[in-house]
């Protein structure tokens, strides 16, 4: 389009304005001279409110059209037609097959069958009867295809892999022989400090666990930023979106989205906002939403207080702790402020880090490890560290990976670029020969740095990573479309097909882009190409509910990485196939022995439900544990002897045989084997199993504990100091720092070193600050 009139002469009716709004034609980034053209156009548009309004309108209608057109019925070639093509490809010399009655090829069965599989991929195969598929498929199509795939949680820390430096317990699950009641504890106690670790007492083999510990609601307490009130504008935008896609009630892909809407919008307000959303031009609503979404503030949280073991002997802890607290604290400290106490959530801090736990032995899905020592802040208390480690995901036999990395970093974020490069180099190391990697740069000069290349050609991959540049913030659709196109080229059916979009905070979603993006992502997800958005240097989670981040359809993930180590962890995870569940209906039951324990307290924030005694609940398909996942919990215990030697229970220990009655506590992890894809497999049809272990009391200084123990104590102690917790005892910053230093361990990824810096920083801020933080009596 050489004869394009100068943008200064544009009127609202200029076709060039449409091209500009659509970023196509002369504004297609692949057209030479595009950048200057765009700059001139932007200048003209900046001067004219009329043009800007028009652009908003154009994008809006374009978006509607796109939305509607992409929702048209999907047809596919029938199986016999496809087979005919492939037969011809195999042997073209034979000539074209005769077309056998094209009109009859509408027999439909295979077509619908395929249609169904597209809708439900990847959860289901081709196993359903075509007739069922037809009716359900139609219904689903009308409600928009749902994506039943699991949505991987972002902050599951997997345990380290090197050999544990301490004795470890591996508790064996009961097998198929409930009659067998032998103690087969497999203690792999090798290290010198073995006595520090609780020894396995008994492995109780049981065929059936009649009890299920813990209520599902309690245990699923992940952090939900969507609970905070949304700004009206973003609610309006969300409602508009919900309305457009018909998402709200059909528990479909955008669980986050519907969560926000239901919690934020009351029916009446929703109606008003619906109309408001209809009126507002997308441009303005997007801008408002972007600027006015405040950081969610949790309500004041309390730590769980001490409980009496006599009246409340049982406890449980969350298997899905949130992941926002630590980044929030870090952000505050980096801005030179102490975090709000509400932002400090002990269990989240603790689980931000990974600890070395032994992998389960044999076919056990989970192992448990417990370490006991005196509490660093209340020496007459015990601090009990409980770690659960799920079986790691198998590395051998991983499906072939087809990775496309789209880098959209603003110029000037060279530090972030170098993180990205380091992380990508580590990713290359994790790729196998047949895997492939492609690299693209987003932004104005967007280009392909490395076409899809087999990982066997390692040199090219490394050079490609070295050639990455920070050239521009992501611009939304174009870059991503290109990335998906590259993913197409090496699509591995049934393999890991993933686009990793590395961005910094500079993403500027333009009006309408968000929805178009979402559609694109949704479509590609249906094809089995998953997206991971990795925000580099973005503090805190990318909040899917607040623009510009779009809610991920199933299987796509968001993660933010404020440090290179986090970035690396995310990339490694993305190389894994969809997390495999190793155990379902997982319940944790910690039973304190009143003879030994006077009071106990879980170092955690109070959640909405009582975090204390697990209620006996019917079997539920609640908490799952995924391969490689680990969970850590700390309990502080007031032993009976130190507080009340006249307790009736305290004397009995002498008479009791060496066994459970001398235990400090008993840990039981109940679970069921995963359903293995059998859709109708009810929880009841798979026997409940459990791991049990007794934990002996030991009194020894925390100075003698393992590095992991000290580090965990440092992390929680840090939280207590930041909260100025009433439970902090005689804890000082000095002590926290010492524990953190002694607890550094191998620290392969630099997380612990960073923590130490944050300890010093917080200490400096708190000790330097005059107001507040009076010493507790």
């Amino acid at each position: 389009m050489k004869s394009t009139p100068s943008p200064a002469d544009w009127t609202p009716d200029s076709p060039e304005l449409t091209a500009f709004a659509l970023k196509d034609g002369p504004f297609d980034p692949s057209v030479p001279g595009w950048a200057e053209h765009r700059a001139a156009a932007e200048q003209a548009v900046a001067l004219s409110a009329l043009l800007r309004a028009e652009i908003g309108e154009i994008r809006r209608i374009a978006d509607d059209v796109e939305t509607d057109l992409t929702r048209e019925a999907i047809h596919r070639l029938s199986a016999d037609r496809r087979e005919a093509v492939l037969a011809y490809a195999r042997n073209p010399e034979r000539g074209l097959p005769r077309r056998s009655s094209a009109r009859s090829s509408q027999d439909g069965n295979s077509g619908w069958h395929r249609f169904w599989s597209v809708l439900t991929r990847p959860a289901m195969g081709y196993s359903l009867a075509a007739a069922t598929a037809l009716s359900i498929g139609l219904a689903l199509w009308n409600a928009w295809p749902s994506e039943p795939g699991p949505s991987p949680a972002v902050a599951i820390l997997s345990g380290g892999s090197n050999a544990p430096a301490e004795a470890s317990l591996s508790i064996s699950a009961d097998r198929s022989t409930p009659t067998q009641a032998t103690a087969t504890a497999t203690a792999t106690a090798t290290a010198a400090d073995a006595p520090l670790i609780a020894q396995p007492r008994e492995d109780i083999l049981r065929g059936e666990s009649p009890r299920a510990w813990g209520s599902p609601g309690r245990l699923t307490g992940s952090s939900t930023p969507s609970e905070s009130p949304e700004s009206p504008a973003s609610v309006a935008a969300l409602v508009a979106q919900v309305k457009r896609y018909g998402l709200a009630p059909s528990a479909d892909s955008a669980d986050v989205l519907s969560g926000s809407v239901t919690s934020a919008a009351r029916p009446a307000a929703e109606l008003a906002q619906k109309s408001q959303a209809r009126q507002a031009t997308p441009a303005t609503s997007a801008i408002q939403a972007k600027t006015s979404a405040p950081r969610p503030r949790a309500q004041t949280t309390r730590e769980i207080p001490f409980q009496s073991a006599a009246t409340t002997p049982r406890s449980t802890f969350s298997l899905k702790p949130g992941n926002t607290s630590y980044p929030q604290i870090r952000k505050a400290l980096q801005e030179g402020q102490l975090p709000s106490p509400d932002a400090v959530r002990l269990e989240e801090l603790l689980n931000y880090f990974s600890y070395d736990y032994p992998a389960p032995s044999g076919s056990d899905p989970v192992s448990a490890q417990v370490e006991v020592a005196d509490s660093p802040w209340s020496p007459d208390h015990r601090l009990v560290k409980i770690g659960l480690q799920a079986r790691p995901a198998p590395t051998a036999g991983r499906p072939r990976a087809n990775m496309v990395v789209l880098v959209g970093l603003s110029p000037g974020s060279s530090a972030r670029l170098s993180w990205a490069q380091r992380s990508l180099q580590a990713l290359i190391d994790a790729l196998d020969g047949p895997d492939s990697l492609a690299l693209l740069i987003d932004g104005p000069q967007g280009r392909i740095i490395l076409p899809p290349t087999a990982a066997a050609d390692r040199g090219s991959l490394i050079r490609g990573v070295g050639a990455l540049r920070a050239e521009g913030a992501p611009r939304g659709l174009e870059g991503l479309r290109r990335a998906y196109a590259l993913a197409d080229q090496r699509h591995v059916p049934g393999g890991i097909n993933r686009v990793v979009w590395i961005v910094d905070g500079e993403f500027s979603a333009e009006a309408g882009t968000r929805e178009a993006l979402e559609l694109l992502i949704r479509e590609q997800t249906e094809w089995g190409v998953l997206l991971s958005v990795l925000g580099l240097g973005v503090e805190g989670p990318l909040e899917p509910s607040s623009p510009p981040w779009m809610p991920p359809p199933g299987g796509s993930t968001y993660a933010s990485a404020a440090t290179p180590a986090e970035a690396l962890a995310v990339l490694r995870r993305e190389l894994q196939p969809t997390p495999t569940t190793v155990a379902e209906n997982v319940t944790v039951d910690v039973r304190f022995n009143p003879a030994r324990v006077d009071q106990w307290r879980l170092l955690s924030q109070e959640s909405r439900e009582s975090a204390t005694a697990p209620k006996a609940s019917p079997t539920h398909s609640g908490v799952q544990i995924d391969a490689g996942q680990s969970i850590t919990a700390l309990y502080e215990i007031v032993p009976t002897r130190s507080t009340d030697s006249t307790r009736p229970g305290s004397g009995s220990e002498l008479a009791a045989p060496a066994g459970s009655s001398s235990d400090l506590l008993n840990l039981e992890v109940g679970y069921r084997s995963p359903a293995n894809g059998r859709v109708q497999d009810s929880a009841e049809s798979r026997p409940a199993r459990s791991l049990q272990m007794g934990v002996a009391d030991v009194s020894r200084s925390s100075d003698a504990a393992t590095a992991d123990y000290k580090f965990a104590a440092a992390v929680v102690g840090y939280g207590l100091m930041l909260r100025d917790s009433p439970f902090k005892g005689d804890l000082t910053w000095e002590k926290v720092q010492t524990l953190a230093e002694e607890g550094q361990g191998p620290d392969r990824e630099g997380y612990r070193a960073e923590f130490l810096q944050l300890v010093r920083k917080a200490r400096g801020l708190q000790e330097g600050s005059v107001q507040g933080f009076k010493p507790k009596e």
Partner: protein
Amino acid sequence: MNPTHTSNQTQEQVEWVRVTMERHEAELLRYAMSLVEDLPSAEDLVQDVFFKLCKQEPESLRGRLVPWLFTVVRNQAMDRHRRESRWPRAAEAEAAEVAGNSPTPSASVQTRDDVRNLMSLLTTLPPNQREVVRLKFQNQLSYREISQLTRLSETNVGFLLHTALKTLRQRFERLDAGPGVSQARSNLHPSSPQ
């Protein structure tokens, strides 16, 4: 076909065709459906495209595979049209098909109405505008790609799109205005521009 093909190359060729088919048959069928009368005819068109693809070298289509596929579909539809001297029928039936499917939960009824409206409005556009709109928004082709396969100039493509969007917008807004809208919507006659 190159007679020196080894079986390995044949294997790769078959795989390439298979993957391409897997990836693109649905969008090609959608496009074909907008050009011909019925699904079997559209399937004929698309199957023929893949027969033709079997004879292509993957290298020769590198970077332009998608436009090539669309171009072949279009050319074949034109041939067919010439043979049968009929210009491809528009998408009324498709729209009706979408609309006529089984009932949906009430929550998405509003959205469905919008879809029907816009889809039926689309059928009121002239065929060339309709085609360009589909290629751009349904098949995500760029101005340049559309220009290549329709043999229109890029300026012309831009003009058609601009006009189409403007028309759709005006008609949609007219529908949207005022009470009694739903009545007017469902009774909309595709050919009533005013």
